[in-house]
């Protein structure tokens, strides 16, 4: 193939450091909860009349577990807006969140096997 050839790059330790992301994205208000796109959210209460409409909608949506990404999609609200709404709901214990399983320095074989098992059933 005579097409141009790519040159391999070396892993940059600074780039694979998750903490660096917080520096880059600013986290300027310093109060937003660390929510991932796939943090699972479940309501702990029904919306009361004092809850603002967006948050009431979240409480209704999350009667069954739902990811932050899905909440953003169903409410047609940007991810950052949803995370700030969720931060308030977490602070008042109206919702519960479950952090995702992230890639560790050493991959977890039993997790990968569970994923493969699930995919094979598709």
């Amino acid at each position, binding site marked *: 193939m005579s*097409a*141009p*050839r*790519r*040159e*391999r*790059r*070396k*892993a*940059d*330790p600074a*780039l*694979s450091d*998750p903490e660096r*992301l*917080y520096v880059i*994205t*600013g986290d*300027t208000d310093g109060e937003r909860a660390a*929510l*991932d*796109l*796939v*943090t*699972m959210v479940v309501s702990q209460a029904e919306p009361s009349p004092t809850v603002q*409409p*967006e948050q009431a909608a979240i409480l*209704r*949506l999350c009667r*069954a*577990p*739902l*990811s932050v*990404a*899905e909440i*953003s*999609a*169903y*409410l*047609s*609200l*940007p*991810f*950052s807006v949803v995370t700030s709404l969720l931060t308030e709901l977490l602070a008042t214990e109206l919702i519960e969140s*479950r952090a*995702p*399983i*992230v*890639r560790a320095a050493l*991959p*977890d*074989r039993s997790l*990968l*096997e*569970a*994923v*493969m098992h*699930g*995919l094979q059933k*598709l």
Partner: protein
Amino acid sequence: MDFRSSDTITGPRSEDVLPTTATAAVKVVIVGGFGVGKTTMVGSVSEIRPLTTEETMTQAGVGVDDNVGVESKTATTVAMDFGRISLSEELILYLFGTPGQERFWFLWNGLFEGALGAVVLIDTRRLQVSFDVIGRLEERGVPFVVAVNTFPDAPHHPVEALRNALDLPDEVPIIDCDARLRASSRDVLLTLMRYLHSLAVPLT
């Protein structure tokens, strides 16, 4: 910001509601150039109709750009399609199709850092588009496999020629796929999981 009355919010269809046991989520990112078939792949394996999450670029620019009074001019909405696969009653896999440009990756905290790995979807008619994406994943230490979406009129290159052009180490899998087909897209994900498994060091 407009917000639709909560009465009109359409949540998941009843068949898409997750069981209360679904508490563990993992994610995989499908990354590639425009029109390479990311959303097609997400849609073909997802159990839900692909959804879209969006973010505005001004969020990332706050405190950096001097854009007081001209916010509306600098606001760019970036959308990302995603799908979902229930792997078991507890474990859910989310698939995100994301543009190749790194400046978009920062809009969603930890998009790549928390992912199990990535699929780089390529079109052999526009191979150069994927050079930058692959380079950035290497820099970030995100494990990935390369899936060649086989468009009917795309030139077919032997795997070794592709490996050479993409300058990929021998261990990184390169596979053909048809992103429109569920079985084919599932096999790409299985290839990624087997590769990640091979990187794992056995417990002693």
